[in-house]
């Protein structure tokens, strides 16, 4: 399993990642945002919270592509790729969930109601439940993988499971939240992408932010892949 030099060793996109993230933090806090009731300045969370979910979706997509590539070639290298991209995708998803929990505490939760009442309503949010299901399916992917000792069997079963997990993302985080009432934006179309949600001034920060956070996730994933390949090589020797 000798590793040829590929995109993982190139530095231009890592530099781009650093610059884009610095731009995100600086421009994200200093540029003007539209003033909206309730949201106020918290709309700046768009550059961070929403980007976590975008990054998660892109990393899961990369993961499923590698899973399919494994099934076509039975090259164990692709199995390692798929696993590590999924792992970083899970981290991004958990961060998106955690930041969403903080954000909603100060925007959705009604301060006039007792805490348990307003949080009782929030717990029934279809978007939250959908995202939780999606993440749990990916947790199961990790548990399933690591419980199989035979390398080829593990790679095959987890590649197939990866495809099912990816397919489950669509009803749980794309379709269900769009057909049910929710406090979370997005029922009317694509949250954070359509005209009414986000104005031009925010777009010039939001798109670079998505790319920057995704590149950071990719960077961490490639580091994990390179470590796993090294470990693999050592075991072979």
């Amino acid at each position, binding site marked *: 399993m000798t*590793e040829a030099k590929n995109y993982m*060793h190139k530095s231009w996109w*890592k530099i781009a*990642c*650093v610059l884009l*993230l*610095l731009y995100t*933090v*600086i421009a994200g*806090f*200093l540029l003007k945002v539209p003033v909206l009731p309730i949201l106020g300045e918290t709309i700046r969370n768009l550059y961070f919270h929403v980007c976590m979910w975008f990054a998660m979706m892109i990393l899961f997509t990369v993961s499923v592509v590698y899973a399919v590539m494994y099934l076509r070639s039975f090259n164990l290298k692709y199995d390692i790729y798929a696993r590590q991209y999924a792992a970083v995708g899970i981290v991004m998803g958990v961060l998106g969930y955690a930041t969403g929990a903080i954000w909603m505490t100060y925007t959705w939760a009604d301060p006039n109601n007792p805490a348990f009442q307003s949080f009782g309503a929030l717990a029934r949010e279809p978007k939250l439940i959908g995202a939780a299901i999606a993440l749990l399916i990916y947790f199961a992917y990790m548990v399933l993988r690591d419980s199989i000792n035979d390398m080829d069997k593990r790679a095959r079963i987890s590649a197939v499971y990866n495809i099912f997990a990816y397919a489950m993302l669509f009803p749980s985080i794309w379709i269900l939240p769009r057909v049910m009432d929710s406090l979370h934006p997005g029922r009317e179309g694509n949250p954070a992408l359509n005209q009414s949600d986000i104005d031009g001034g925010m777009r010039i920060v939001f798109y670079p932010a998505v790319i920057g956070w995704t590149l*950071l996730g990719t*960077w*961490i994933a490639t*580091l994990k892949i*390179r*470590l796993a390949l*090294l470990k693999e*090589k*050592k075991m072979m020797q």
Partner: protein
Amino acid sequence: MKSLNKIALLLVALVSSLGAAAQKDNGGLDSLMRSNNRIYVVVAVLVTILLGILFYVMRLDRKITKLEKDN
């Protein structure tokens, strides 16, 4: 690795000298940091955290590259 440490030292020196400059002269930097309801303080904190994390990832990258070369 040596050159990386030098860059890190340079950065630390730069950042600490910024603080010193701010203390000496209350006109320039200090008023920038205190303007706009002190949002620049938040930006500085977040940039510091981000740079710290990115620097850490960069170091990991170099360590793994070295391991790959040794193998």
